[in-house]
């Protein structure tokens, strides 16, 4: 991994152009990881040259010269944005996502677009029309998903940082599998304008970086109210970079889940979890046990609601105005284009979403799931009346083998057990590298906080990462 913090310390001995070429070289040497779909070489080198001038003139912007990779569901004007789908294989946006504009205005250099599970649906990055992404430590293992390419880009030293999207854990889970920091802010802190919608009440842009400092820098640059996304929170841009450098408060409370909600974890994860609790204790934390209600319903409620929203969002792909078109009579164009343009997992989710919304099933599935969502939301609110953070594993297991779960959707969904509840409640959550398994695979631990308490969450995460010394 190569961090932006290190790069800043190496200026002026090292230029941003050199740094960009180093990363491009690394990307080309590690092509077998399949982390990128499209590179942005020429524009990146131009932007890097501009950054060098700004550094030399002593007027760098907040992310000057930071080399960033973007998940390929974030629109980039003039650079194809495929969602790793045959449906959008040749789609070239005419405008940037708001985050892409913010990054450029802050001086970041976009190096390319990363591979992902098609339409952000998956937990292993095996559902891409451009092929699976490999884990950087062992190509037989998955890097996690759906933002697998972004996690790998950071973990394998191909970018200083990356953006992904997190609908049910798609930033935190691959971050945990690959040994990097993965932050999903509160719903509404970062504009979704220009992100291809999956489940609009859950989707949130998230940040990958080697450390919490760079994470905070990016969060400060891309957060805030955006008139192009009316669901953005009415809050000023974050100022977390100052907050994260502060020490922990003298008195604070860390909530943990009861043992029965941790039952599905394997021993490697529990080992790191127990050692992490020691870290909190020695940092002076008061530990309490807290329960988020109906843990048996977290994943079912998430999949009912998210697939319902997806079936509606993906109805726009009709083969007529953009995207793949399969020839046929007028009546057949839409059905044929959708049937051939979407991959298996996307079709499964559209079908499930359509089913739970269909008449006769709406109340028993969709209505019920919305009620369960209320209980989870309220459950979190009561935890954070007493605790500063909730501490839990990011995933029940470390990275698993390729092919192991790809034909068993339910087994795949279970790897989201610890991440979906934060999306259901709209709260911020961050995965921090905390140790490794007996086999040497990274293990991540997760910190969650009350809604809009993102800055303080990152402060706790910074302290935890430094104490865990990974």
């Amino acid at each position, binding site marked *: 991994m190569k961090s932006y913090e290190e790069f800043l310390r190496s200026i002026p001995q090292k230029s941003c152009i050199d740094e960009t070429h180093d990363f491009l070289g690394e990307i080309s040497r590690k092509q077998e990881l399949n982390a990128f779909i499209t590179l942005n070489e020429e524009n990146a080198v131009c932007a890097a040259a501009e950054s060098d001038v700004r550094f030399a003139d002593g007027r760098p912007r907040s992310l000057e010269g930071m080399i960033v990779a973007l998940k390929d569901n974030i629109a980039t004007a003039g650079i194809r944005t495929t969602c790793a789908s045959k449906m959008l294989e040749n*789609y*070239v946006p*005419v405008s940037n996502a708001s985050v892409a504009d913010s990054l450029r205005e802050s001086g970041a250099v976009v190096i390319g677009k990363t591979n992902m599970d098609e339409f952000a649906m998956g937990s292993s990055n095996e559902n891409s029309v451009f092929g699976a992404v490999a884990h950087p430590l062992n190509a037989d293992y998955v890097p996690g998903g759906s933002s697998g390419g972004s996690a790998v880009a950071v973990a394998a030293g191909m970018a200083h940082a990356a953006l992904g999207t997190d609908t049910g854990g798609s930033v935190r889970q691959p971050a945990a599998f690959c040994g990097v920091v993965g932050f999903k802010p509160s*719903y*509404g802190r970062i504009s979704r304008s220009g992100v291809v919608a999956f489940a609009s009440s859950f989707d949130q842009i998230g940040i990958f970086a080697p450390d919490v400092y760079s994470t905070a820098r990016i969060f400060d640059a891309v957060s805030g109210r955006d*008139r192009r996304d*009316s*669901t953005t929170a*009415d809050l000023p841009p974050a100022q977390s970079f100052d907050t994260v450098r502060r020490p922990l408060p003298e008195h604070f409370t860390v909530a943990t889940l009861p043992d029965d909600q941790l039952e599905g974890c394997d021993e490697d994860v529990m080992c790191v979890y127990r050692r992490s609790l020691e870290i909190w204790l020695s940092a002076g934390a008061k530990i309490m046990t807290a329960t988020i209600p*109906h843990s*048996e*319903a977290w*994943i*079912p*409620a998430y*999949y009912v609601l998210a697939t319902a929203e997806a*079936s509606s969002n993906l*109805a726009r792909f*009709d*083969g*007529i*105005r*953009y*995207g*793949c*078109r399969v020839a*046929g009579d*007028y009546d057949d*164009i839409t*059905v044929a284009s*959708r*049937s051939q343009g*979407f991959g298996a997992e996307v*079709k*499964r989710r*559209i*079908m*499930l979403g*359509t*089913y*739970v919304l*269909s008449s006769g099933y709406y109340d*028993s*599935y969709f209505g*019920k*799931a*919305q*009620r*369960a*969502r*209320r*209980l989870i*939301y309220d459950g979190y609110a009561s935890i954070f009346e007493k605790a500063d953070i909730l501490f839990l594993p990011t995933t029940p297991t470390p990275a698993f083998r390729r092919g192991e779960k790809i*034909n*068993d*959707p*339910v087994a795949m*969904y279970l790897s989201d057990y610890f991440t979906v509840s934060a999306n259901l*409640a*709209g709260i911020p959550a961050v995965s921090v590298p905390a140790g490794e398994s007996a086999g040497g695979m990274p293990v991540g631990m997760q910190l969650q906080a009350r809604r809009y308490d993102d800055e303080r969450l990152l402060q706790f995460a910074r302290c935890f990462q430094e104490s865990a010394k990974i």
Partner: protein
Amino acid sequence: MNQDKTDAIKDVADLARLNFDAQELEVFALQFDKMLEYVGVIEQLDLENVEPLLHVVHSENVFREDVAEKSLSTAEALANAPKHNDVFFKVPKVLK
């Protein structure tokens, strides 16, 4: 696979504007069963007096002044269309 189940899946596929061939349908029916069984946990919950949570953001409608803003040009709007001429998206004949 029994005919009722196949018909039920075909009905949902119709609503979703998707088509599965016989072989796909076979694999899909099994997976769909498992998915439904799994999310079926939801049906068992007693949530009689719980208000549904529609969205985690509780903001009011967001308005802006009703003033025309820059939007896509015709050429930009057509740029990604699979078939188009200078001004229109092209589709096969609708009226026979």
